Structure formats: C-alpha cells, structure tokens
C-alpha cells in the first residue's frame, strides 16, 4: 500500500509455454511478488491481439504486460517476433492517445526464470504506482466538457 492508497490494476498476458511456467516456478520457489497483477494465460504471446491490450486499458487496467518466450525460443517458431513488432507499433499509438508508454510492457521470461518473473512483476508495479491511475472511463465520459 502506497501513501496515496493507490493499488494499480495490472493485466499480464503470459504465454503458455514459457512465461506461465515461469510463474509456476516463481510459485514453487515461494517468491514473493505483487498481488496487483492479474495473469491471463494465452497459448502464445503472438495471440495477444492489440484489441486485448486496448480493451484492458478501456476496462480499467492501469498497466498491461505481455510476457513471452525469448526470441528464437517460441513454441510456434515466430509468434514472439510478431509480438515484438506489434508492441513496437503500439507504443507510438499509445503516445498519440496520451497514454504513457510505460503502461505497456513487453519482456521475455523463460520456463526456468522464476526469479525474473517475480522481478518484472514488481518493477511493473512500481512503475505504474509512480504513474498513478489511468481511469479510462473518465476519458470515455467526456460529454459534459465543462465551461469554456
């Protein structure tokens, strides 16, 4: 709990073959990490449609993470390269919507990297705590723009 009482809501899409197993390892190692991250298992980080990410932001997430296998290790050969390209393109798009680029995070966590898994979760939590809430529902509800 921070001084302001803000607990970020973070959605993490984790790939079935590497990062989700990494989360499992972090668990069996009894590593402690932030409870603010909601994991969603997907078969491949390449399955994460940009729509999922934007839906998460619109639905109230303050940050979104995508975790996949290391480059070259993708179970489906090149899924994570597609993820990297989409992510590189989504960042400037977020910028244009005036969403801080740090709210979206991509990293590679292998099936053996329990420690790294716990670390990136905590680091993300710190970054989003610094940035504060996103509150996209306030952006949607802009009908009454106040006095001009």
């Amino acid at each position, binding site marked *: 709990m921070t001084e302001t009482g803000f607990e970020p809501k973070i959605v993490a899409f984790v790939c079935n073959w590497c990062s989700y197993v990494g989360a499992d390892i972090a668990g069996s190692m009894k590593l402690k990490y932030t409870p603010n991250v909601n994991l969603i298992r997907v078969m491949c980080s390449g399955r994460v449609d940009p729509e999922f990410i*934007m839906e998460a932001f619109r639905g109230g997430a303050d940050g979104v993470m995508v975790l996949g296998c290391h480059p070259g290790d993708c179970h489906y050969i090149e899924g994570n390269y597609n993820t*990297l390209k989409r992510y590189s393109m989504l960042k400037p798009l977020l910028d244009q919507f005036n969403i801080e680029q740090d709210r979206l995070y991509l990293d590679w966590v292998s099936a053996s990297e329990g420690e790294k898994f716990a670390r990136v979760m905590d680091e993300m939590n710190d970054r989003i705590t610094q940035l504060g809430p996103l509150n996209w529902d306030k952006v949607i509800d802009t009908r009454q723009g106040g006095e001009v």
Partner: protein
Amino acid sequence: MSDKPKIGIYWCSSCGGCEEAIVDLNETLLDVVAAVDIVFWPVAMDFKYEDVENLEDGELLASFINGAIRLSEQEEIAKLLRRKSQLVFAFGSCAIMGGIPGLANMTNREEVFTRVYKEMESNDNPENTVPQTEILVDGKYNLKLPEFFNSVYPLDQIIPVDYYIPGCAPSPDTIKDAFTAILEGKLPEKGTVLSPNKSMCDTCPRKETKPDKVEIEKFTRPHQYDKLDDGKCFLEAGIICMGPATRGGCGERCINANMPCRGCYGPSNNVKDQGLRMLSVLASIIKSDKEEEIAEVLATLPDLIGPLYMYGLPSSILFHKRIE
C-alpha cells in the same frame, strides 16, 4: 396524402457527400420516389422539425441518418427520428464510425473553441467570444443554441440503429441494394451492415499481384511513390492500404483510381477496432526481427492515428485521446 410508405433523411456532422450520393442514384432515385414519400429531408426539401414531431410514433417506415453526432441538436433529432421510425439506417461512415469528423476526438471542445474562435489568423474577435448555449439579445430575446459536445459520437452510441449502409460516401450500388431490400421486404436480420462481409482485398483488382509473403523495409506515402499506376499491390510498396482490414462492396473506387484504400467501409463483422486490426497487419509485414531495425522502419511512419483511424476513431476501443 398518399398511402405510400414514408421515409425521412437527416444529416448530422457530415459534409453533404452522403446526400450527394443519394442524388447520384440518378434514375433510380425516381423509382425510389415513386415507391415512397420523402417527408423529411432538410438538405433538399423544405420541412420543419415540427412536421416530424406531428407524425405518429412509428409512422415513418425508415429514417436514413448520415453524419456523426457532435451537437445536442443532432442528438435531439436522432432521438426524435428513432421514435417516429420503424427502422433507422446509419448512412455512411460518419454515422457508423464517426468518420472524418470523428478525428476531432483527438482534441476537445476547449481546444477546438480556442483554435477556431480565439487563435485563428483570420479572426476578428477582440472580446474572445465563443458560442454559448443561451444568450440574451437586446435585453429581451432569449436565444438558444445547440450544445457543442466534447466528443464526436457514432449514431449507434446515441440511439439504437437497425441497419448500416457503409461508405464515404456509400457507393450507388450499396445504396441501390439497400433500397431494393427495403422495398421488397428482403432485409437481413437487424444489426447487419448492408455490404459483403469479406475484406476489400478479396475483390481488389490488384489481388493477383500480391506476393505470398509481403515484406517491407519502409513505409511510403502515396505522394512519395511514382508508380501508383503500375497495377501492383500497394502494401508491397510500403503504402498503407486499409484493404485487409476493410469490408468490401465499395466497387474498389479508390484502387481503380490508383489510390490505396482508406478504410471507409469499416471493419468486417467480428472486428471491433479497424485501426488495431490494421496495425497487426502492418506490424507483421515489417521485414525484420531486430528491435533497432523495427524502430527504423517505424520511424518512416510518423503518424498512426491518421492512416489507421481516418474514419473510425469514435468507434475505436479507446474512443478519445486523453486530455488532462
């Protein structure tokens, strides 16, 4: 008054191109007028809002509303027409997705008013007057003006819409098919977009020239490219062509004029966000797997909102830019 079915046509935030498209039906328009009575069409004929208010609820067979919703007046009339009509058709890209006026969701009322009424170089407005919703003139005339909303809305975020006639402007064939379906009672289930549910690429005259795997090393804008008329797939040249993320049925008017698709027919069914779908397409054709090289390719594309959301910003998932 005859007992022909009655229809209404109304425009909101739009350019008038949709009305033009109806007039462009030429002789077909005469067939339409022979079959129905147009009882409300402010652009073309003299009616008052009262005339619509005096109709029974549901008396109109159909209303065709084009343009996005930007003003309280447009919302009011859209709701009035909804009440008086059995069927409401969102007519054209602006009514369906927000259209080009929808790009104003990158800004808000305050920024628009400041630029247009206070900063514009050609202005003569020393008192910095901006539009108000109510004003007392000469101490006795209380004038009311519509409210200018902070955002632009597609029609179906304001009222329930039964059918969608896509396009900027809808092609004569799309309009003709829609009118025929109404008059012959052959409308599909409600909520349908009245155009094929296949991507524009499927019927693109340049389809055959698309290589099995498109790979690009940089993005090019049409004016930077001198072979627009070589008949080859635009994407291969790095030109953003919205074809893969856009519904077909438009008659490929832009492609036949040697210009890439801008996406005016909107996404096909099951795609929520046309811009993001196209972003996926564009990302996947970048010919590199290395972070630095990808960044170099993306540096040739300084603006994403323009090409991806030329017609669809208000119907996108994020809807509006965040303005503190």
